[in-house]
Structures are given as structure tokens and as C-alpha cells.
């Protein structure tokens, strides 16, 4: 059984096609492992206490997943033509709506809510005939970088259970890193796919803005949000990206152009000489000061490997990146304050009556929002309300939009001399749960420095493991960024570097990860 769950999506497809494995066997193996390692995914008390496992899932969808798997097996046996990833199970971040399963955004606000419609990516997953294992944990409404802001308990990092899994998409990253799913969907507004990938030693891609439909993805910050693939290999992210990308008439910001050939790009990059002549721009501002030593060591080794493989390493500068965090928090919180206004206890979800005083709709809305949103959501709503307020708009939101222009210009200039840009994904490895500095939210926000600029510019970015840091033996992520619509370059360079690193390590990085069942057995969840 352990062998099945360690296989990549590409390997699983091959084994199903050769008749070695069925989708039911594969799906069942993953469900079993989820049940064994996640704690009690369906047990609300354990979940709330953050106890007894990885807690990557908020909802397990075993029955439906197995049904889909059975259908795929039957059709394969009957010789019918099937989509590329048919029968490969997938986990979906609980920010994406799924008909017939709860969608909570990890918020009390939506506890128990069932969407009457499917998101476009959900529909694509169904059309791809991939069994949906369940919905994964996140920071409430995707706001946070630790998954500690989930209303339903923290998700734990399978490399070390007392460490953060990153966020907001800690659940999806842990699901793939912890062998609970070969593939997962995440969303990335300022690094929510890439930073969790970095700290869990997995691969995550934030595609070009508009590459994958946002219809049915609960909006955090509309002009920054993008859906993307999570997996343990670059090839697997390419496979999933191809399966769910494409123009959607229901999303006005969806790109109306052909989906790139990502799988081929990954194959080419991993082949002998695949990186020859590739110009890799090292971002000056994001590869020195403020980054953990072990992170920089692994980063520099990767650059060495790329150089030895024939890539040309150049230095580039993104001078406006120093304003990126400020601009990001202004734009993001402004859009958040408006996007989250619909949660008011009128049409769906939670309604809370005021404890005292008259019951008016205004007071019910206020009480509902007070009870339904966690602290981080409230903080960002208030900041956004402030930034959009009369008298402050130009100074804050308006200026932030201009910084966005500056950052885009910086990227355009950098891409004149480099085909892809590179930096570490996050300044540090996974820090301890509960370490989020109290009273200074900016300290934490600054951890997003390497990831938010790409969201502001709309350009695509990939994070893949570069090894383990010397200080703490925890995974380090390396991030490549390409110009808009050139996502294929990410798969080429990502798969290329991955192959170089694995030949050095002798095995995928995940082989060095401790056994999850043993970790859980020895861990004091009460701590």
C-alpha cells in the first residue's frame, strides 16, 4: 500500500494503463492513508483541537471518490478513451466550491454550507474523471501563511509536526507532501500555493493570472487570486495545470488563448541538455539580506547546478520590489473588505443574533460578522475599509495600484535579459506553530516578500524543493518566475533542476521525510 501512495500522478497513470493498478486501488490506498494520518477528518472536536494528525482535510469525500474510480476502471476495462488523468485522485482546497460536498473556506461563516453549483475547476476535475478525495484545510478565506487561521484547527507539517505547513494552502501542500494525495488544487493570492510547497518540500505553481478560471473560487483578492496545481513532482503539476486550464466565459479575467504545452516543456527540461542556453536572472533584492543561511546555501547550490547544466546565470534587479509588501497589503485588504461583505447572514451561512438590544438587520449583520470571522479576517477587512475610505483612497489604494505598474515595469526590464527569474520562495524554512509574532503583523507579512511581487504583476511562478536547510533539516523552496503566458518555461526549468537535484540526492527529496505514522505516534498533541 505504501508504494501506491508514493507514486507520482504520472506513474499512477502508467500503471493504470498497463493494468497493474486500478483507480479503485489507488483511491482506496489514499483514503486509507488519509484516515490513518489525518487524525479524524470527520471528527469536529479533534479538528478544532488540532489534534491527532496532519489535519490536512476538512472534509473527506471517500464514497463519491470511489464511485468515480469504479466508473473509470470500468471504462478502461471496456477500452474506452479516457482523459489523461482519469482515475488519479485529487484533493481540493476548501476555497473552491464543490456541489454535493461542504465548502467552508475554513470559516465559521460557511460551516455546513453546501454550494448549489460547481466551480469551473471543479467541473474540469470532474470532466477529467479524477476522484475527489476531499477538501483541504486553509487559513480562513485564504488569509494567512501558516494555516493557523483556519477555524477548524491547524494543519501540521509532515516534516515536523510542531511546524507550520505554510499557508494559506497548508492543507493542499500537506496532502501531497504527506502522501495523502498525488495531486491537489490550491489558490495563490500572495504565495498561498508556493510558500506551503516550499516549507513542505513539494511543488506548487501559481500560473499566469487568468490561466485557470476563478469562477467558483471563493474570492479573497480578485486581482491577485489564481488557482494552481500542487504535487510532489514538477511533471505532475504540469499534468494538472494542463487539465484544468483554459478560457472560461464565466470569468471575465480569464485568458482567451490556447493552453500551453506544459507536459512537453517539463519533459524537454528534464532531458539531457534541456537547460542549455537558458538565461536565469537572479533577483538581487531577493537573494541576500533577510534570508535564512540554510535557505541561501541550498539556493546557491541550485544556481551552481543550473550553471553546470549550461544555463546562463545573470543578475537582475527589481528595485520596486521593496514596496511590494506594502502595495500588496493595501490592494489585497481593500479587495478583501469588499469581497467578504457578502457574508452577512442573509442569504447563506451563519446568522448570529445580537446578545442584547433590538434585533435589526444591521445589528444581526454585525453580530454575524463578529462571530463568523476570525481575527486575521477582521484585521484585513478593517485595513481594507480604511484604505478605501474617503480621503485615503489616493494615498493608499491609488498609490498601491501605481506601485503595481512599477513592479510590472521592473519585471519587463528583467525579462529583457533573462528567460526566467529565480529567488528562494520564502526567507525561512517552516517555523514553529504559534510563533507568529504577537502585535506585529508586519513581521509575518514580510515573509511573503518573494512571492507577492508575481501576484501583483500577474506573472507565473513555480516553487520546487531545493533540499534541506543545514540548520533544521527542513525543506527549502526555490522559485522561478516567467513572463506572463510563458508558464511552459517554468515547467522546463523546474523539471530540469528537479532532475539535477534528484540525481545528486539519489532519490526524490521526500524519501528523506520521516514516516508520518511514526511521527504521529510519538508526538504529544496536547503540547
Amino acid at each position, binding site marked *: 500500500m505504501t508504494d501506491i501512495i508514493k507514486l507520482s500522478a504520472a506513474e499512477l497513470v502508467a500503471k493504470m494503463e498497463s493494468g497493474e493498478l486500478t483507480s479503485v486501488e489507488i483511491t482506496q490506498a489514499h483514503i486509507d492513508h488519509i484516515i490513518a494520518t489525518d487524525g479524524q477528518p470527520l471528527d469536529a472536536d479533534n479538528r478544532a483541537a488540532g489534534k491527532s494528525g496532519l489535519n490536512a482535510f476538512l472534509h473527506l469525500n471517500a464514497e463519491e471518490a470511489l464511485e468515480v474510480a469504479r466508473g473509470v476502471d470500468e471504462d478502461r476495462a471496456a477500452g474506452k478513451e479516457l482523459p489523461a488523468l482519469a482515475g488519479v485522485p485529487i484533493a481540493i482546497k476548501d476555497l473552491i466550491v464543490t456541489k454535493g460536498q461542504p465548502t467552508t473556506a475554513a470559516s465559521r461563516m460557511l460551516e455546513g454550507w453546501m454550494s448549489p453549483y460547481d466551480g469551473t475547476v471543479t467541473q474540469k476535475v470532474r470532466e477529467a474523471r479524477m476522484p475527489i478525495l476531499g477538501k483541504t484545510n486553509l487559513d480562513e478565506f485564504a488569509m494567512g501563511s501558516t494555516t493557523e487561521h483556519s477555524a477548524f484547527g491547524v494543519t501540521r507539517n509532515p516534516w515536523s509536526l510542531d511546524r507550520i505547513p505554510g499557508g494559506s494552502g497548508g492543507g493542499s501542500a500537506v496532502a501531497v507532501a504527506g502522501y495523502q494525495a498525488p495531486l491537489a488544487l490550491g489558490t495563490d493570492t500572495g504565495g498561498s500555493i508556493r510558500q506551503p510547497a516550499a516549507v513542505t518540500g513539494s511543488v506548487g505553481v501559481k500560473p499566469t493570472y487568468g490561466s485557470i478560471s476563478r469562477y467558483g473560487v471563493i474570492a479573497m483578492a480578485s486581482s491577485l487570486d489564481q488557482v494552481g496545481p500542487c504535487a510532489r513532482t514538477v511533471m505532475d503539476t504540469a499534468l494538472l495545470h494542463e487539465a484544468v486550464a483554459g478560457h472560461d466565459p464565466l470569468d*471575465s479575467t480569464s485568458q482567451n488563448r490556447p493552453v500551453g504545452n506544459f507536459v512537453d516543456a517539463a519533459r524537454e527540461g528534464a532531458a539531457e541538455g534541456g537547460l542549455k542556453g537558458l538565461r536565469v536572472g537572479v533577483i538581487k533584492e531577493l537573494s541576500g539580506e533577510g534570508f535564512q543561511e540554510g535557505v541561501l546555501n541550498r539556493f546557491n547550490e541550485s544556481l551552481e547546478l543550473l550553471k553546470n547544466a549550461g544555463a546562463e546565470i545573470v543578475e537582475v534587479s527589481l528595485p520596486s520590489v521593496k514596496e511590494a509588501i506594502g502595495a500588496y497589503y493595501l490592494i489585497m485588504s481593500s479587495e478583501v473588505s469588499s469581497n467578504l461583505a457578502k457574508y452577512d447572514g442573509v442569504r447563506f451561512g451563519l446568522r448570529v443574533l445580537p446578545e442584547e438590544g433590538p434585533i435589526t438587520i444591521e445589528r444581526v449583520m454585525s453580530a454575524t460578522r463578529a462571530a463568523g470571522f476570525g481575527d486575521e479576517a477582521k484585521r484585513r477587512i478593517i485595513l481594507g475599509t480604511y484604505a478605501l475610505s474617503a480621503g485615503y*483612497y489616493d494615498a493608499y489604494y491609488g498609490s498601491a495600484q501605481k506601485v503595481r505598474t512599477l513592479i510590472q515595469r521592473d519585471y519587463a526590464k528583467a525579462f529583457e535579459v533573462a528567460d526566467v527569474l529565480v529567488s528562494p520562495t520564502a526567507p525561512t524554512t517552516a517555523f514553529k506553530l504559534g510563533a507568529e509574532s504577537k502585535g506585529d503583523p508586519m513581521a509575518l507579512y514580510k515573509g511573503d516578500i518573494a512571492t507577492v511581487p508575481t501576484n501583483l504583476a500577474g506573472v507565473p511562478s513555480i516553487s520546487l524543493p531545493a533540499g534541506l536547510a543545514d540548520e533544521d533539516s527542513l525543506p527549502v523552496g526555490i522559485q522561478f518566475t516567467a513572463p506572463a503566458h510563458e508558464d511552459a518555461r517554468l515547467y522546463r526549468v523546474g523539471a530540469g533542476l528537479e532532475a539535477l537535484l534528484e540525481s545528486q540526492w539519489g532519490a526524490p527529496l521526500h524519501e528523506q521525510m520521516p514516516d508520518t505514522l511514526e511521527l504521529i505516534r510519538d508526538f504529544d498533541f496536547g503540547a
Partner: protein
Amino acid sequence: MSDEILSFEEAMEKYDPVLGFEVHVELNTATKMFDAAPNGFGNTPNTNITPVSLGLPGVLPVVNGKAVESSIKLGLALGCEIAPVSHFARKNYFYPDTPKNFQTSQFDEPIAANGSIDIELEDGTVFTIDIERAHMEEDAGKLTHMGGSSGRIQGAEFSLVDYNRAGVPLVEIVTRPIVGAGERAPELARAYVAAIREIVKNLGISDARMERGNVRCDANVSLMPKGTTEFGTRTETKNVNSLRSVERAVRYEIQRHAAVLESGQKIVQETRMWHEDTRETTAGRPKSDADDYRYFPEPDLVPVVTDEAWIERLRSELPEPPSERRKRLKTDWGFSDEEFRDVVNAGAMDAIEETVAAGAPASVARKWWMGEIARIAKDREVELTETGATPQTVVELNKLIEAKKINDKIARQVLGFVVEGEGEPAEIVEKRNLAVVSDDGALNTAIDEALAAMPDVADKIRAGKVQAAGAIVGQVMKATRGQADAARVRELILEKLGIEN
């Protein structure tokens, strides 16, 4: 409870009113502004909705292209400049009829701006009203207040929300301040809203029925002491749902403002609600968010970019503007100012135009539509076009008269049968045997009988008193139940008596 008001005349002696209007026009597209839900009136509550119109988590808007074209056409008809680049924006405020708790609207970059239209009052005076902007937005859902009296928000225990109307496309037309209307302000208000209604109806972009809320007017009123030029504090009156209400509400607010100012108090800048039943306004719900809507560009929608070719194509599709059409028809028909104004006020212009197009002279068409058909409409309290009489009816009646098959009196009778639903005029004349008696034999018999019955009259005629023939004609008409052609009868009488006419 009622506010003090000053007499209108007194108010006008001391103050000059400044008006401003925000007219919302509901477009008659098949679907809503930002989603594919049907744009329909009066359906089962919460059925004309998609996840988007309900603002469910995860939904995204997509602009209705037809609504954009309708908005551009309206902008052109209002003489506006069409923006080369126009953005949607979010207007943030919490209210349970607004599914997302923001309205998707336009803010600093509306689709159309800087226009003007000429408004002709009943006596022919023309006022030019400057249009500041016309922008696209979405309608809200409908709240029903329950548990109180007469469905008002005051005293209600709870409210019910139907989101069928949420997301229906609107164009909001905003005027610049209108100064100088003086005592004609209420009349101008009415005429302005009537003109907007006429324009959107003429463009075919709205059903334009005020009673259904297709055209809604918020009237801004402020006063400034005569001889001064600084605007006073304004109020915005809502719930003005008919042309009559617009006129009355403006008049009332002028009187109320005047009374407040006269008593030395200040006007509170607020929303007022018009009540047609009591013909007064009351203070509306205080809007705590009113001064801070936190507008920002709608990130889920992309800009609308227009180019010359697109605008010119839409311009070429515009129908003739109503005011120009009126000028043309008046000249074509040769009506006097007064005749034409009566036609317009009676709402008979379309019918007359169609009747003329179908082959009747304008004077004949006017005679029928302003005469007998208008009388029937008035009796039955319906619109002219709802009487059952059509342009074709008038054309046919006229043909029958010209062919001397029937006379005017019979024609009126035939019209009566037409509106009763008995069929087409010719058919009715045939069926009811109403045709003029043109058989000279039958007439001669009747004439002989009449002459025999009135020998003294016959003698008078023979003696040269030709006008005495009228009595004999009358007798013959009576005998033929009016179906004779009186002129022919007269000819036959004179012939018979050997008189040269």
C-alpha cells in the same frame, strides 16, 4: 406629523429653485447586467436568479454586451460623449436587497458624459438640460416589509427579500444642476422625465413603464434666495413613480424648503420619500454609509473600450429622435401649432402616423383619432390604441366614405361595431346592410312618396324655392334609415320637379 409648507406663489416670490435629477432606466435586455438570469418582471420570487445574481460565494460577473450597447445608444441620444475607456466600480454599502453588499456601478469613468437635451414645455418654451453623465449599473432586489401597516418600513417586524430584480441592468442618467426654471420648475421636472421616458422607449432599450419601475426618478431640490447664486442644501426625493408624482413632489419640496428657510431653520441634507396618497414627503431612512461608499475599480470586470467604428455603427442604428420626429410630422401633416400640440398631448401621434402611412390623409386621421376614437377611449377609460380601433380601421372607413358607400354618420356607427369586435368596416357594412342606398329606383319611390305627402313643399320648390328641397331630402333620409346619399337624393328631387340646379 405633516411638515409646514409655504404657498407655492410665496415660495416663488422669495426663492429660486435649483433642480437635479437622477433617473434610473431599467433596460429591457433578455438577461441581467452581469449574469444569464432572465430579466423578467413579476415572476415567482427567487426564480430569475443564478448563483451570480444571488452573490453566492465564488461567483463572478460577466458584462451583458447588449446592455452596454443600449447604454451607448442612450448616451448618444442624450448628446453625450462616449468614453473611450470606461470602468466598472464597486459601491460598497450593506443592505439586505444588495446580494454582494456592494453595487456594481460606474464611478469616475462612466460610459457617457457631457450631454444635453432640449425640453419643450406645453406652451412651447424650450429649456436645455445638461446631462452630467449616464452610467451603467445593476438593480437591487425587492424588499417587502411585513408585520407593520401598509407595507411600510416603519413599524415592520421583518422583511422578505426577492432577488429576481437583483442585477437587472440599469442606466442612471444624472443631470447637472438646473437653474432658472423658476415657477416652471415642477412642470419642467415632469417634462424632463417624460422626455427621458420617450427617448428610451423610442430607442427600444426599455419598456419605459413608470408604474413598473422601468423608469425611476430621484428628484433633487434646493432653494436659493432670489438674487443670489449660491446653491442651498438639497434633498433627494425618491419613490416618485409617475409623471404626475414628479411634478407634485418637486412642487411640494419647494414649498417645504421655503417654509423651513422662512422659519430660519436649515434644510437637512437627506433622502425624502414621496407619498402619492398623502401628497407629501417624509424623511427617508438615514444612510449612515452615505458619505463613504469606498468606490474602487471592480477587479472582476475589465474595461469597456469603445472605438469610432463601434460608436458610429450604434449611431447609425439610432431611430429618429422624438423631438425631430415631431417637427417633421407637424410639417408633413400641415397641422397648426395648437392642433399638433393637442395630438401630442392626447398621445395620438403614433396612431396618426401609422394611419397616414396606411393611406389616409393626415386631416382625416386626426379627425378620427382626436374625435370619435378619442371619445370611445375616454368613455371606456382606456388608451387610444386599446379601443380596438386601428389605423387600418380608419383607412377603411375613409375609403368607404370616399366611395360614397357610407356617409359620416353611418361611418361612426360602423366604428362602434368595429370596437365591439364585429369585424372590419367593410364586412360590417355588408353584414348589417348599412351601405348607402344608391339604387335610383328605390330612391325615386321614396321621393315620390315624400312629394305626395308634402304637396305644399313640392309646390314651393317648383316655384323656385330650391332650399325647400331640404325637407323632402330629410323625409327621404328618414325613410331610408339614413342610408341614402343626401346629395344624390337632392339631385333626383330637382330633376323630378324639372328644376335646373
